[in-house]
């Protein structure tokens, strides 16, 4: 087992991921143009929810161009990074390098593995907030999967695009104001049981940490004061 993956270092580097929380995030098939979602397969399940694998095929050559996206929501960013470490430890390649250059800002923590012949990034592992993602080229040829990773990272970390939010029944935006003391935790919202056709909830805090306990999403403030918590609810039909 590789011991080079230092999750304490990762935690120290993680800032934005602490303020983000995504819940019931699903890929529906429209996320990547010219790619066809072939299947969404549930894998293992734990307290954080079910891990899903999405298999995308290129429209020209299904066997040659195939990209696999693994999405695992956890109850906190720490557990997402634990899942990342677990993933890396189940790679036979030792010391997969951190994302650098254009990938340095990908996710909270990212690792990029390249095809030994072509040098294209054929596998990218990263976390964003409480979500672990792995994007792998799994077709006959190794292709560059960075567009997938970048698109997914944006979807998880940025507020929904205005056009999407203004549709009816549009993704709904609520700003919840919470006045907290330093170190105080408060429930931001109750969470529905995750479902494939349920809404995707994205919560962005200005600072502090977001995490889930049971069916409650909580915010822990690191500084006293009034905090505006942005809650975006996007239904599958809005995307």
């Amino acid at each position, binding site marked *: 087992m590789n011991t080079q993956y230092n999750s304490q270092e990762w935690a120290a580097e993680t800032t934005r991921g602490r303020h983000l929380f995504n819940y019931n995030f699903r890929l529906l098939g429209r996320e990547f143009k010219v790619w066809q979602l*072939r299947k969404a397969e549930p894998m293992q399940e734990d307290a954080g929810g079910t891990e899903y694998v999405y298999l995308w095929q290129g429209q020209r050559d*299904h066997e040659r161009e*195939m990209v696999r996206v693994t999405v695992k929501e956890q109850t906190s960013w720490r557990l997402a990074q634990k899942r990342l470490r677990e993933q890396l430890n189940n790679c*036979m*390649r*030792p010391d997969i390098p951190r994302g650098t250059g254009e990938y340095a800002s990908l996710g909270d923590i990212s690792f990029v593995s390249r095809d030994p012949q072509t040098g294209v990034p054929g*596998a990218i592992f990263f976390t964003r907030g409480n979500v672990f993602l*792995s994007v792998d080229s799994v077709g006959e040829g*190794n292709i560059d999967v960075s567009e997938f990773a970048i698109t997914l990272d944006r979807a998880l970390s940025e507020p929904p695009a205005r056009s999407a939010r203004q549709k009816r029944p549009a993704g709904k935006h609520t700003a919840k104001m919470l006045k907290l003391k330093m170190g105080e935790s408060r429930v931001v919202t109750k969470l529905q049981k995750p479902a494939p056709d349920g809404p995707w909830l994205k919560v962005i805090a200005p600072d502090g940490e977001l995490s889930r306990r049971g069916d409650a999403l909580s915010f822990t403030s690191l500084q006293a004061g009034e905090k505006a918590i942005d809650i975006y609810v996007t239904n599958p039909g809005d995307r």
Partner: protein
Amino acid sequence: MVKRKRERLMQITDVVLGLAAGVGIDLSSDGKTAYYVEWSIGELAKVEVATGLVKTVKTGLTYPQDVEVDWATGEIFVSERTGAVVQAGPGERTAKIVEPGGAPHQLALVKEPGKRYLYTVCFDSGRLIRINLATKAIKTITTGLGHPIGLVIDAAHKYAYVTEQDKSALTRIELASGNAKKLFSGLASPFFLAWTKNGKGIFCVQRDPANSLVQLNLGTPVTSTSIATGLAWRPSGVAPSGDNKLIYICADQRLQVISFNGPPVIKRPPPPFEVYSVQFNYRDGPAIPLKNHLTGTSIPLPEYVKSVRNEPSAYVSGALPHVKVVFRKLPGFSGGTYAIGATGSLGGVHRKNVSLVFNASGLSNAIDFEFMWPLPNTVERLKVLLEWNTRKTAVPSVPVVCGAATHKLFLVLAKPTAPWVAETPWVAALELACGWAAGAATSDVAASLITERYNGSGKVSYDTVSGSTFYGFSQYNLTQMLDRLNGGPGLGGKVNCTDSANTVSTLANLVGCDLWQSRMESGFQLNEMIAIGYNSWAVPFSGSFNYHEVAWKGACTQNDNIFDGCLKVDGDADPTSAPHTPLLPTNMLFGDCSAINYRLRLCPPGANGCAQCVPNPGMTRKRRPII
């Protein structure tokens, strides 16, 4: 079944259906009645050959090979595979005449003034013997024959003519001296013999794959003429009518007649009932319960319901299955006792006499039938035909077919081990595993075959980018791997060692192996290898593995053997340098760093190679649950 051979207007017609390994036959001189024996069930039956009406004459014989009738006295003589020659009749009487041993086969009755002799050849001992029926004295005419089977004695009682399986030949033996002379060779599995009408030729049955009848013309030289091909599978006995216009053949499952001037018309009555359902898996039975993993449901029982479904069953190899059969009444049913049995590709089921009672829906109770023979002692994916037949037992009657179906049976070497203890075995997994390991008689061979077939499947290839685990490291997603190996997308075409160890061990354990998934760790240098899905030698990942995982036996230590479906190592004396000899590690000792076993084939010697490649069963030995 009727087969025509245009040039001679030859026809082959079924007279009796549903024989349980028919062998010897004897036809009365008037050509109306024949006796035949059924080897598997030890029965002697009598048939009126013009009508096909059958009556059981004797049961309880022990693997009868041939029947010879003294038509003048009504005495019936039967040779038994277990070594005896018995007299079965007249009447209920059955008595052992002699027990020469050596597996007596075809019988030949020779009458001389005041004496009757029964000649026979003994398959195992290679003897031709003469039995004096009055004194029961046995005289050995000759020895050293090569598995003799067929026998006829000439009219002058001077020569015996014998088929020898070892030589595929017809041999003539002088009865006075015992001298043997090979007359004709090149026969295909020759079996029983009969004289032609003029006594100058001999009919010789040839078993599978020929399934034919030839006439051997006893001139100089002896020549062969084809009489009929396309006989029912595994013909044995031959009995021509006096004018040779009809030649009766007793085959494994049918008694047939070869005719040249039109066949006899056998009027078969409509079946009195038909097979409605066949159940293989029943309470306290030997069948292994099965599951459809896609629906998550157990295979429905009975597995076979006519026109509704036909699901597979599974057994540990060597088991003797019973099936529970429900019959549906048809208009031809008239009550009474029926003999019901089935022939088929594994010998069918034992015939039994049954008095069926039908409920208001026209269905019978489930009747238990036992397979004729235990299942093979190997891993198999079998298609087993059962052709059911029946006839009334109280009076001579014509056997009729009352149902037929081909059933799929999976055979495994032992009860499946984990993860197939908590999980009911999946049909789709058995389909793949039993197909891959077909023919394996030991768990090592089965696991080796599965490793080889997985590695060579062409459906998956090694992930040279990161060596990621794609089919699960907490649970193994066998559902998706099956999809991939059966031509679907699965979870993509890339795999790593964990995926491969999961696949090999999970499928091997399904067929009764006892393998684990376990790792060697960590961060060790590598020799060149050929990764799954590739055909060139390479060292992945700039020379080392973070870890490696294989299917492993026992405690998963260096003293235990491994099966690695993920890569081929160099099998020659120096794995560290080219040229290399590809070797897929199957049942290979993991080993230490002092002798070339798996460990030194995978890793070079040294502190960063072999020494770092250490089994870690304490932390990693497992059998992942499947999803």
